């Protein structure tokens, strides 16, 4: 019997002996898996704590440690990024790698740990990938223009509750990139959809709405992400359970912006006009 705190009926912490296959790669070179045995992993440890244990063991053995991304370790920053047994953020839906605990694995199990895999996310070292493609998309339109310096009066712009809720749901995206890593097309539509929805439905986001949508989609394509073919894998792997809704709405806003752009006024009479 294992309790929620990871103790057996005698009050001892339950531990696992694991076989780990971890990706080893230097920037610009071909990578390979390295196999390591790790014993006495407490079931209450998080996946990242398990990786810390592995690195400590490697240091003691005088070997090179594995590089991996992490920061908050509480599921809000979006830095942790491991593909565990083929699943970005591991086997438990709706959690990040840092919030995944070892009680979700079996004693004696072989666990394969890989980086995010996509052309737009090149490997920097081992499990660390370069996600600056996402930054470029945000720079292209993931902002609103406001006067800074003094805080505006909060109740100046009324936001209906339903709209605020919808925007918050989209704003839950932590920009981790699991959607790209799980997509069989390496597409970033879930991420871009979440960001566009977050800003496009709020009154504060209206001024740049069309410009934002066109610019972010263009930048997304240029950054080398794939196209959406509606597999739905992204939603199933997103640690924040962002839904495909945001992609439908992104498509809707994109069509709208394209049509408006096509028929926009040029401000000048055409040749032969008066």
């Amino acid at each position, binding site marked *: 019997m294992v309790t929620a705190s990871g103790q057996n009926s005698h009050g001892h912490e339950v531990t696992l002996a694991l076989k780990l296959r971890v990706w080893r790669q230097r920037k610009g070179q071909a990578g390979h898996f390295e196999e390591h045995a790790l014993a006495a992993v407490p079931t209450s440890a998080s996946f990242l704590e398990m990786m810390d244990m592995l690195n400590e063991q490697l240091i003691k053995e005088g070997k090179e440690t594995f590089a991996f991304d992490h920061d908050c370790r509480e599921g809000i920053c979006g830095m942790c990024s491991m593909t565990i*047994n083929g699943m970005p953020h591991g086997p438990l839906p709706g959690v990040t790698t840092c919030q995944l605990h070892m009680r979700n694995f079996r004693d004696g199990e072989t666990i394969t740990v890989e980086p995010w895999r996509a*052309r737009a996310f090149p490997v920097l070292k081992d499990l660390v990938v370069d996600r600056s493609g996402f930054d470029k998309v945000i720079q292209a339109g993931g902002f609103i223009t406001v006067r800074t310096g003094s805080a505006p009066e909060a109740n100046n712009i009324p936001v209906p509750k339903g709209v605020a809720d919808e925007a918050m749901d989209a704003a839950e995206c932590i920009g981790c990139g699991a959607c790209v890593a799980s997509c*069989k097309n*390496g597409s970033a539509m879930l991420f871009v959809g979440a960001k566009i929805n977050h800003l496009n439905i709020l009154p504060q986001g209206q001024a740049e709405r069309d410009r934002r949508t066109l610019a972010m989609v263009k930048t997304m394509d240029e950054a*080398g992400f794939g196209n959406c073919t509606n597999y739905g894998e992204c939603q199933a792997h997103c640690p924040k359970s962002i*839904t*495909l809704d945001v992609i439908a709405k992104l498509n809707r806003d994109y069509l709208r912006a394209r049509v408006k752009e096509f028929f926009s006024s040029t401000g000048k009479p055409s040749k032969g006009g008066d």
Partner: protein
Amino acid sequence: MALTGVVLVGFVLGHLTGNLLFFRGPAAINDYAEWLHSHAMLIWGARVVLIISVFLHIWTGIQLTLENRASRQGGPQVEATRRASVGSRTMPYSGVVILAFIVFHLLHFTFRQVALGGRDFQGDVHAMIRYGFSQPAVAVFYIVGMLLLCLHLGHGIASIFQTLGLRNERWRGRLEAASTVFAWVIALGFISIPLAVLTGLIK
């Protein structure tokens, strides 16, 4: 993909409606065929739109597949799939087989060059279909082709709504169910004809 898909779904539906006249006897379907052929503008207009749509559908499909393969770069060494349907993962393959089917189908019943024993049916479409499907290999190929069309449409039709932005979490399940049902109606409708001939239901 979505816009050409709409045209092609429309065509498939129209084609099926015409085909089902087969069950109303030789007079009905032969008259229908004759009526079609006597309206050259109509038939050629439809054909031009169709040929363009098929071409664009294939072209964008190839581009999409190549681009997406490249941006995925092989993917993880351990592959895990949570919810992508079989239909969604086999779109390029079902598409290629359907294309092969269309080529055969045109050579067979439109240009009447293969598998008809060089016969001239003198405008008797009903007799031509009966003879065509009396050969088991041909009938089975038609049935397989239509089952793959079912798989292709099941994912394709639901996707049209998503691409055009006409879907949300509430409607997703319903639209997916509706497109699956639609795909099966189309496929079973087409399959009923070779099956009826093969089983000797219609002689």
